[in-house]
């Protein structure tokens, strides 16, 4: 039986989350770290929607709506911080922005 | 059908490359009617170039009012004005940035031959650096003369082999 089941969506959700996680860990460029965070949130979203669809309950979908709101907020604030940091340090790389080093 | 030798010589279409000639005709028709100039306005002639785009002479009748300032989007460079040695380099570079097929109109005496400026600073004709297809006389030429030149250019495009127009010329190398 080769039909797509909620498990498939769960695995996909995990994969997206894992890829995002990997990105957060290994990248030095803060812009990419932010993007990876978005990817992680997306993974969660996929899981939530598939749960919602499986259990025929809207709560999951509604939750996705809120996650999107938070994600948009996070990006806006994050990028503003990044620009502020860039103006100060002329760099968007994480290791250049440690306060203790200099 | 029996044909004599003179038939073949006289009627070029029977020579065998009928299809190529047809394709030529079609492609040349397209190119003839869509000549987008790159106004290389350098001096006085640029004003007459403007005049030919303005209401009285209206170059748009020929579909040529689409003056693109980006050489990559234009087909025909109208060199309007005195080409000085300092400017010559720029003219050549812009010419090189145009995509084939491309044509050059030397508008006015200065662009054609240096005109009345026989001096240390003026290149004696833009044909020293780019190949020119049509020369327009006058200092500056009247807009009618420019329009006539553009029609001559259309004729020339119509006579050319469309394939040969795509042959590469050596371009100025990267910086």
């Amino acid at each position, binding site marked *: 039986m080769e039909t797509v089941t909620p498990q498939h969506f769960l695995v996909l959700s995990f994969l997206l989350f894992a890829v995002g996680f990997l990105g957060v860990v290994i990248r030095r460029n803060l812009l990419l770290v932010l993007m990876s965070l978005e990817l992680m949130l997306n993974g969660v979203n996929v899981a939530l929607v598939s749960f919602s669809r499986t259990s025929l309950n809207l709560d999951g979908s509604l939750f996705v709506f809120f996650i999107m709101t938070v994600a948009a907020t996070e990006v806006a604030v994050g990028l503003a911080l990044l620009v502020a940091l860039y103006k100060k340090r*002329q760099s968007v790389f994480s290791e250049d922005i440690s306060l203790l080093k200099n | 059908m029996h044909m004599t030798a003179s038939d073949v010589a006289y009627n070029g279409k029977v020579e065998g490359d009928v299809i190529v000639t047809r394709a030529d005709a079609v492609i040349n028709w397209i190119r003839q009617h869509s000549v987008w100039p790159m106004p*290389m*306005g*350098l*001096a*006085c002639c*640029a*004003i*007459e170039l*403007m*005049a030919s785009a*303005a*209401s*009285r002479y209206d170059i748009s009748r020929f579909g040529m009012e689409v003056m693109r*300032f*980006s*050489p990559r989007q234009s087909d025909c460079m109208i060199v309007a*004005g*005195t080409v*000085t040695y*300092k*400017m010559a380099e*720029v*003219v050549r*570079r*812009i010419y*090189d*940035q145009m995509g084939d097929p491309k044509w050059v109109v030397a508008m006015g005496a200065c662009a054609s031959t240096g005109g*009345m*400026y*026989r*001096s*240390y*600073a*003026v290149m004696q004709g833009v044909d020293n650096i780019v190949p020119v297809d049509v020369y327009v006389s006058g*200092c*500056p030429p*009247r807009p009618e003369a420019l329009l006539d030149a553009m029609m001559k250019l259309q004729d020339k495009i119509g006579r050319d082999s469309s394939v040969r127009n*795509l042959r*590469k010329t050596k*371009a*100025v*190398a*990267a*910086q």
Partner: protein
Amino acid sequence: MSTTKEISIGDIGSRGAEASTKLDGDKMALNVGPSHPTTHGVLRLIMELDGDLIQKCEPVLGYLHRGDEKIAENMTYNQFVPYTDRLDYLAPLANNVAYALTVEKLTNIEIPPRCQAIRVLVCEMARISSHLLGMGVFGMDAGAWTPFMYTFTEREKLYTLFEELTGARFTTSYTRIGGVARDVPDGWLGRVESFVDQLPKAIGEVEKLLTRNRIFLDRTEGIGEISKEDALAYGLTGPNLRACGIDLDLRKDKPYSGYEQYDFDVPIGTRGDCYDRYLVRIEEVLQSIRIIKQVIKDFPTGAWYAEDAKKIFAPPKEKILSSMEELIQNFMIVTEGPQIPAGEVYFEAENPKGALGFYVVSKGGGVPYRMKIRAPSFCNLSILEKLAPGHFLSDITVILGSLDFVMGECDR
């Protein structure tokens, strides 16, 4: 049919291949011109940008340097007249007149009133012609294309009149040392008058499109403000200076060619921004119309060239062909040039672009020893280095348009 072509990106817009070579910090070097829609010819600007903000702007000239001054040293005075056409090629007639007046100043010949009136007339027509283009191109720089076409329609009418008078619609070469090339044709004055009668309406249409337009005001008001001190220090002249609020009009201050007889106002700006410069130009056109009407009203009769200046002005064609003396006179003037006494002279005329000055050093004979052309555009443009920083990149188009320079006289 797809081919790859490795070429350097040249000056059109994009010495941009150097985009990666960044200046320190956030600055970016941008090259504008010399073939760029905003530079009205072949000016090149090398700018440092911070985002869209100009930090530094260095004009590079000389792409149209044709060696006019050197050429002048190698030919007779009358032979140089055609070259003056091509200085400020938007107002060739005014250049001709300024040049002729300069040389005449060395000679002490008296120019008859009819000739003076003709000169004033063509000067003002040239001013109208130049300002019309200036207004149109200024609108175009701000993004409005249609006014340009409207003003050009009016210019075409002027061209027709010029053609009737001088034989050429654009580069007129009308004056000679000691007079003008020919008298005004029959009925021409009437046609000029009917042209200037309908001109205010045409200008009104342009004004309708621009003057009260909110976007246009936003684009031009407060942009490119020049203070009075700066304007004087950088030697600005003409409408650009008057827009800053300085009352300097050579037609009033040092009247030449009979300007003192005519009644006209000199428009003065207040802020010295782009909008003021535009308004001053429009008002000047209207004042020129006033002058033209006065000239036509009392058009003097009599000779249209200095008849007693035998060694300077070649007589009209019909006399040359009928009389031996005049033939010899003509021959001498054509071959040896008008005989100008030694000395030096500097004269400025109020041209559409500003004060066009000629400094002539003569050692006698038909050829000048040294001729310096003081080009108004050259001086007006020199303020750009100071003016541009602090403006946005898009403002530079408006500023350049409002300075209304011509590279032909700037580079000479």
